[in-house]
């Protein structure tokens, strides 16, 4: 479910980026081996195109 809060009445293309630690548990095995040694970090990126009365939204997850 998306909740879009438009702070200004604008159109155009907007973007944002983030990271996601792709592990199930925060124990030493997961954090040290799965993440530190084997790299569990995913990049997140999102692009929204604001139009007059609608918007297109895409979210991408990638290693």
């Amino acid at each position: 479910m998306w909740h879009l809060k438009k702070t200004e009445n604008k159109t155009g293309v907007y973007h944002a980026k983030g990271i996601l630690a792709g592990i199930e548990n925060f124990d030493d095995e997961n954090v040290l081996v799965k993440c530190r040694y084997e790299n569990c970090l995913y990049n997140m990126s999102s692009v929204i195109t604001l139009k007059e009365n609608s918007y297109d939204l895409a979210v991408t997850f990638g290693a």
Partner: protein
Amino acid sequence: MQGYVSSDSSDFEFWWFQVGALYPFAEDHSGANTKSQEPYALGPTVLETSRVNLGLRYAILRHYYGLFLQQNGTGTIFRPLFFEFSENEELYDLSLNYTDSQFLIGRGLMAAPVLSEGINKRLIYFPSQETWFDFNTSELIKQTVVVTNYPAPLNVTAPLFLKAGHIVLMQNVANVRRTEDLDSLYRLSVAFKKN
């Protein structure tokens, strides 16, 4: 949290749960000859304050781990504002009370906790090169550089802001009492920035 070496008779312990919950390493414990420090032993206001703020901690714990992994064992995820905005000369002036009382968590989040007793609002500096959103309300910060009297009540988290262009993944914390309780429900807080 405060109170390990000596007990504080003030109500400042309320605020410690706001700022302490944001520390990468946060503990709440007491020592010999100090009063009990568990949130439930400090009255209903502290209990609720700790519930809200530790809830935030669990919600963004995965984000913290991601930031530390991104650092790859070097440096800190707690960053003074001048690390990111080194050209803003006012950030080197320690007579301005925001220079050493605000900090970045990674590159996208900025915290401005209350660090003085009996205060429920504070002056907050917003680097003007960026657009900022209140992390709790998603409201756009419409000021130029400094906002005086920004609300910082007890029953919510410390003032926290998301910089435009950043995403913070938040984990569901309903009924969570320890990290093992965290499930696979997530929410993305996204602050868009114009290309």
